[in-house]
């Protein structure tokens, strides 16, 4: 019996066409059954002729990217809420949304519930590390204002997720700060440092430059700084790529000289492409919820479905729940 993934067909900048195409791609390439959730007239019109493995589930409403998270209360028949309900009701094993992150989080939290003992959810974001497996950033933006105890819980959840996702038995955990020394940081970081020091795998503070570098496997921070750091990394990657490729094509001589290296460069650049990394996983909810980035196209959505399948197959929710329980 293949794993069933509910996909929010109406979430994302390129919804529904690219999301529907990605769902069809996932069903064609992966051993997965996809429940495509959205207004049936819209999803049916977007779906190519016979997309085997894709079934339509009707949801009459849509939560837009600019809507507040509280829209899940007023739009109870929205595609993202219905997707979460399919997981809650056991009709799907996981959900994927490229839509409004706040709404996806709220829908997952309200419909699937929280893992017992978890104070706040966190988003685990895979950050590419060249020539190496990714590192995990926790929290990528779920919980903006954090208490020190919550960051410790993020570290516990992130460590277990890294074990599953990266296959590392004892992931190295770093606390994002403005200096490596233990006394560095704002009040939150100074308060949480001694608490994290009690945790197996904690190696101390890390800095922004440790992103995309195999210094640590898990970078822990609050959702506010985590989201800013993530977007900064994305911007730096994009800017660097533009600089390299525009330089190499700036004159006919340079273009000719770099022609032989271009395929390898493009392949290397693909390693950093968010579309190839797959979505982010919402940790702390009692079900699998993968959040794909808002600009997801078909390939990115397909990879997010693959991530959701991996999460189900590796029992990541049960493992995170056990880790939280063990940590007390």
């Amino acid at each position, binding site marked *: 019996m293949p794993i069933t993934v509910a996909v929010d067909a109406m979430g994302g900048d390129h919804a529904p066409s690219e999301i529907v195409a990605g769902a069809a791609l996932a069903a064609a390439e992966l051993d997965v059954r996809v429940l495509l959730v959205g207004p049936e007239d819209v999803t049916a019109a977007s779906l190519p002729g016979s997309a085997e493995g894709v079934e339509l589930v009707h949801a009459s409403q849509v939560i837009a990217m600019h809507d507040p*998270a*509280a829209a899940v*209360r*007023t739009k109870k028949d929205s595609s993202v809420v219905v997707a979460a309900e399919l997981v809650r009701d056991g009709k799907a094993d996981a959900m994927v949304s490229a839509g409004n992150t706040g709404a996806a989080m709220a829908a997952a939290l309200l419909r699937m519930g929280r893992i017992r003992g978890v104070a706040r959810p966190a988003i685990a974001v895979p950050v590419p590390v060249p020539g190496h497996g990714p590192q995990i950033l926790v929290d990528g933006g779920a919980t*903006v204002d954090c*208490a020190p105890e919550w960051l410790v819980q993020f570290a516990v959840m992130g460590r277990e997720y890294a074990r599953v996702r990266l296959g590392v038995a004892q992931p190295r955990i770093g606390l994002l700060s403005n200096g490596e020394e233990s006394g560095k940081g704002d009040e939150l970081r100074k308060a949480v440092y001694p608490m994290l020091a009690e945790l197996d795998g904690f190696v101390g503070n890390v800095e922004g430059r440790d992103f995309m570098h195999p210094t640590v496997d898990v970078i822990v921070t609050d959702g506010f700084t985590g989201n800013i750091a993530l977007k900064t990394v994305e911007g730096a990657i994009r800017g660097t790529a533009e600089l390299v490729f525009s330089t190499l094509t700036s004159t006919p001589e340079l273009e000719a000289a770099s022609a032989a290296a271009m395929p390898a460069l493009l392949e290397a650049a693909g390693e950093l492409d968010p579309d190839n990394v797959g979505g982010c996983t919402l940790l702390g909810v009692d079900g699998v919820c993968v959040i794909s980035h808002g600009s997801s196209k078909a390939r990115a959505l397909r990879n997010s479905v693959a991530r959701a399948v991996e999460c189900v197959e590796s029992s990541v929710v049960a493992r995170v729940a056990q880790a939280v329980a063990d940590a007390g």
Partner: protein
Amino acid sequence: MPAETHVGRSPIGPDEVLRMIRERLSEILEIDEARITLDSDFTADLDADSLALIELVEALEEELGERTVGFSIDDEDLADLHTVRDAVDYVVHRLGDEH
């Protein structure tokens, strides 16, 4: 006049609303109920973010909806609820409106 209820239970007063809020909030925030008093500010004292308040509202609607026909909390009113006392007063008032 008592509230119209599904199961004929007694009317819901401020003490019971406070009990519900404390119970649900302690589950949502993973904190001891003793920390939650009438004067607790959701943000400043309990670190409750908007998502936690949405969870609380949904939980109250579910619990009170089983006992009082048509009970609901308007999202527009959420911004005015700063303390536990605000929430208790609001819910009691809404329960009165449902009678």
